[in-house]
């Protein structure tokens, strides 16, 4: 079976599954509380996987992700309130109108966030390690300060009146898209360049890899996807406040991918899910919740810094099995090898 046909069928199956699940949830068969948690997981997955592209696969330590979320969230919110409603209604108020409006607003959010990523990335990505971390942190903070002062989006009072869209299908469609995009990037020549940058940037540069260009590209893609996550957040509760995008938020997502394992997509998914559900389970411990959280982080770093899944990609096993299914035992194998990240290993520099 030709590759593209196989991928198309998988895609359709996934969409059908999502649609079916969405129907189940809409029908209220499952407690809305659990539905809410699941949808929040979906958003977290989008954010975590997108961050992993830049932190895990490219090895650039960025902790300003919340800033791009905010940019995406606010720009799409502005679009939805001022243009989206008109678009939705102009199509006769039917479902098609809504879908188009939603599509547009997500594109707007992602695009603006991607642009922000470009603006931040170009100057910052010259820096290494700790410095990059602090600069991205700084940019994230600056974005929040600006949002606090822009009256058109509510400033410190927050932005309310965003049309609420709590769609399981939409959220998980974006999540799946994010995973697919990152997966495809990682397993392509582009991805190999990124990994080479992670492993040894100087050597990569010496081998002719235009490191700055690749880093910026990865950064832009990562921020665009973070922006998409922000769009989902904005339309989830219909209300935005700059306070929700301070650096603590960036840390939360960072912890998700650390827990899951920096170079692992599956790891990020698992990390995102675990760390979205964990605060809910710990509700009984209210006061001590954050204390437990921080202790866990420290212990995790001391005992298993490569996270749950390390940088092994469990997808590998799945892919091999799928290939055998569709191509037969004589199919061509071309799975790239993944090396251990430098987390947990001696840093020669």
């Amino acid at each position, binding site marked *: 079976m030709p590759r593209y046909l196989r991928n198309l069928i998988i895609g359709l199956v996934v969409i059908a599954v999502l649609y079916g699940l969405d129907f189940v949830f809409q029908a209220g068969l499952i*407690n*809305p*509380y*659990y539905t*809410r*948690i699941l949808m*929040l997981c979906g958003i977290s997955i989008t954010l975590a996987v997108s961050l992993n592209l830049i932190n895990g696969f490219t090895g650039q330590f960025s902790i300003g992700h919340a800033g791009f979320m905010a940019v995406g969230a606010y720009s799409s919110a502005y679009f939805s309130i001022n243009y989206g409603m008109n678009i939705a209604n102009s199509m006769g108020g039917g479902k098609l109108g809504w879908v188009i409006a939603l599509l547009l607003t997500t594109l707007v959010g992602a695009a603006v966030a991607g642009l922000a990523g470009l603006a931040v990335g170009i100057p910052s990505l010259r820096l290494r390690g700790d410095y990059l971390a602090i600069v991205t942190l700084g940019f994230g903070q600056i974005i929040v300060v600006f949002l*606090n*002062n822009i009256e058109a989006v509510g*400033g*410190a*009072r*927050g932005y*309310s009146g965003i049309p*609420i869209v709590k769609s399981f299908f939409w959220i998980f469609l974006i999540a799946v898209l994010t995973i697919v995009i990152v997966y495809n990037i990682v397993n392509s020549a582009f991805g190999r360049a990124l990994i080479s940058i992670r492993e040894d940037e100087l050597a990569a540069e010496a081998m002719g890899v235009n490191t700055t260009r690749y880093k910026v590209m990865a950064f832009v893609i990562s921020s665009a996807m973070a922006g998409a996550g922000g769009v989902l*957040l904005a339309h989830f*509760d*219909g*209300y935005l*406040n700059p*306070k*929700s995008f301070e650096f603590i938020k960036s840390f939360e997502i960072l912890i998700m991918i650390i827990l899951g394992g920096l170079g692992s997509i*599956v790891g990020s998914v*698992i990390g995102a*899910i*675990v760390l979205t*559900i*964990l605060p*809910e*389970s*710990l*509700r*009984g411990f*209210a*006061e001590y919740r*954050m204390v437990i959280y921080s202790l866990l982080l420290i212990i995790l770093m001391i005992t298993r810094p490569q996270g*749950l*899944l390390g940088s092994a990609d*469990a997808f590998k*096993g799945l892919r091999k099995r799928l290939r055998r299914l569709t191509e037969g035992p004589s199919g061509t194998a071309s799975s790239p090898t993944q090396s251990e990240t430098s987390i947990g290993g001696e840093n020669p520099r």
Partner: protein
Amino acid sequence: MKRILIASILIAGLLAACNPQAGGGDKVRIGVFMSTTGTTANFGISSVNGIKMAADEINAAGGINGKQVELLVQDDRSDASEAATIVTKFVTQDQVHAIIGEVASSRSIAAAPIAQNAKIPMLTPSSTNPEVTKKGDFIFRSCFIDPYQGAAIAQFAAKTLGAKTAVIMIDRKNDYSTGLGKFITETFTKMGGKMVATQSYQEGDQDFNAQLTSLKGANPEVIFVPGYYNDVGLIAKQARDKGITVPLIGGDGWDSEQLYKIGGTALNGSYFTNHYSPFDTEPKVQKFVNDYKSRYNSTPDALAATAYDAANIMFDAIKRSKSLSGPDIRDALAATNAFPGVTGTVTFNQQHDAVKPIVMIEIKDGGTYAVRERVNVESSAVAANQ
């Protein structure tokens, strides 16, 4: 693959741990969501104290129509998304009959649509942003709103104190402060006063010297400071240190035992609007203050008082309500007429906001409050409800 399996088991376990709180039973279940940790922790703690005290009192007196009141108190970490999640849990898993919360308007706004959708009445004791009750008819508010409070403050300055020029120091990071500040400025200007300078700071700042130095040059007759007490105390102190002697005027965010502790004599002769004064000699107020003091070892601030009243208003409505269903409680709440609270008599208007008097308090030496005036806001002064 094995690791994925382990992780899946972990996730399943965590999901299972998301239990609803306490079994159902024959009780009146009221969900309370407040910020008991995070940046506005002290406000949340005061409010919860007030609500708990009201609940214990009514339970000791036999409950509501014989049923005991059960409070489900949850902390939202001063985060709007948390607040929304908690309220979702309240109206689904926990099956509460009514909700009380939150202090900060941003969190009330985030949670209100959820309560409205689920047709469970929600009563906020102290969110002052007009947006909150616009979310639907199940959302109530038992305190006055910013346009009203702002007008009262400006009117006092312009008419009673006769000030023609003023400056205003706004907390940019705080929706309460920016909102209130906007209405103060509007009304003051409408009454013929001139706002010669606007300065701002951010909640949590320690150092206001730069702003105060600028303000001093503008030479105003009064300084409006519609912020929270912990910043106001410092601002007052630093202002006096700089030689600024004009009175400061603020809103209910000033109210706390800590205010005078932080600001000290720098606050003498300054004013703020409030829902009540703990020094009010009315017997009902004194009883509340004494009970609170003996239980919690501190003087109740306005948040504790409004929360206490909110709880009692809710209990009263549930008592009058035909049943424990959301719509019936909502109707009973809407019908509340001249409910005698420690923070004044409460009646709900069409928008389900409370109509109640505002007091203007003057701070006297030693930290005692004198009720300078019970403000009647001229209707022309109230800014249009945004």
